[in-house]
């Protein structure tokens, strides 16, 4: 398979903090790839390494088949990047920013630029310092698409956008992927946005990949099952089930989150002799929360200690 992004044993530290820790990632060309992870997981650092803003301490990275350490930056003519906080000349007007883009990028497409500018209704004459963060993000997206990218890197682009603009923003991304086959690599906390629009997803935690799957694969390989027992649930046996991610019990009812093929899981459960086994729907958010819990990233009062440690 062709990969638009590939990293091998990538490492990056800031002082004592290990931001990226032995990271392996492969993003298939033509996919819309979602990157999730708690605050401080290393998502922005990873994207900045891929764009070439910061260099890794060790390891290899490739975008569109070219090494990220290459001095020749020409491949970046085909990489659109929308940072979480766009940096643009504050005294430039929106129109002047576009004109700068047209000079910087050899594949600049004025028609595409005008079409996007129209759909976002951005104030062309306005100076950038007078725009809101959301409007700046839109200007950055217009530029990132008008340069005719083959790879689009978006760092939490929809944070702080109003619902209407968020939708046009996401539609523009889908249209780009559908019409031009552009690979989209996109970090977000909005799992609902991701769930219906990405085909692959990776979860990052403390600089490491927790899982990386096609979304269909992930949904077919993680299950939440409700088990009802006649008497006291066999807790020890449940805890030692292979592939168990998370479990909770309420009296005779035990709810487990578990990875593996559903037939294999059921064959394992037969030995525990439950009265009823019922599969529950498991959305991306629940999958993510279950994995984070298994990693020790706790929620609620009992986990405050662990949480604050991760936050630091």
């Amino acid at each position, binding site marked *: 398979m062709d990969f638009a992004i590939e990293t091998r044993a990538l490492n990056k530290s800031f002082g004592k903090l290990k931001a990226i820790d032995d990271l392996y990632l492969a993003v298939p060309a*033509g*996919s*819309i790839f979602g990157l999730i992870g708690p605050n401080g997981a290393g998502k922005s650092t990873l994207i900045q390494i891929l764009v070439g803003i910061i260099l890794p301490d060790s390891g290899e990275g490739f975008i569109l088949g070219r090494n990220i350490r290459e001095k020749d930056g020409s491949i970046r003519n085909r990489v659109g990047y929308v940072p979480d906080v766009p940096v643009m000349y504050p005294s430039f007007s929106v129109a002047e920013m576009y004109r700068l883009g047209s000079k910087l990028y050899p594949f600049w497409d004025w028609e595409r630029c005008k079409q996007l500018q129209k759909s976002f209704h951005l104030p062309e004459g306005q100076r950038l310092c007078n725009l809101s963060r959301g409007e700046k993000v839109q200007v950055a997206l217009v530029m990132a698409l008008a340069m005719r990218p083959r790879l689009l890197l978006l760092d939490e682009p929809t944070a702080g956008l109003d619902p209407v603009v968020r*939708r046009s923003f*996401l*539609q523009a991304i*889908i*249209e780009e*992927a*559908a*019409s031009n086959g552009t690979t989209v690599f996109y970090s977000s906390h909005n799992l*609902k946005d991701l*769930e*219906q*629009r*990405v*085909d692959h997803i990776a979860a990052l935690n403390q600089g490491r990949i927790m899982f990386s799957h096609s*979304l*269909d694969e992930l*949904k*077919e390989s993680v*299950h*939440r099952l409700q088990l009802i027992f006649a008497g006291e649930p066999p807790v020890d046996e449940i805890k030692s089930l292979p592939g168990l991610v998370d479990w909770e019990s309420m009296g005779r009812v035990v709810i487990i989150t578990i990875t593996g093929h559903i037939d294999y899981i059921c064959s394992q459960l037969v030995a525990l002799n439950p009265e*009823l086994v019922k*599969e*529950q*729907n*498991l*959305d*991306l958010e629940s999958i993510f929360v279950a994995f984070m819990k298994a990693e020790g990233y706790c929620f609620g009062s009992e986990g405050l200690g662990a949480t604050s440690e991760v936050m630091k």
Partner: protein
Amino acid sequence: MWLDINPRLSTPIYQQLVDGVKEAIAQGMLLPGERMPTVRKLALELSLNPNTVAKAYQKLEQEGIIETMRSRGTYIASPSVVDKELAHKRLGRLIEKVLVEAYHLGLSPAEVKQLVADKLDEWEVRGRK
């Protein structure tokens, strides 16, 4: 839009699309020979990943539900003649699942029979419209 997709279900989205199209045909909302929207159009309309929509179209084509005519688009295929024995086998498996569920819901065989008969009537009425 006649397709009702819920991304939060455990059922993968491409499978929901496949099921949705099959249901729409069975209910007469889509007719043989009718043109399907392009992958790009459907992806934008439902705000879904184009690769997911493409995957659903592939599955539907494999199952003979839709046909792609080169450069002319995708159409609903005429109902295919499936081997009767195979059809019985496949449907039999689904019916078994229904019966298991019925048992756990505490429905008697007579009640299940009545329910099936009612549903069939409902479908026939809808089909005639």
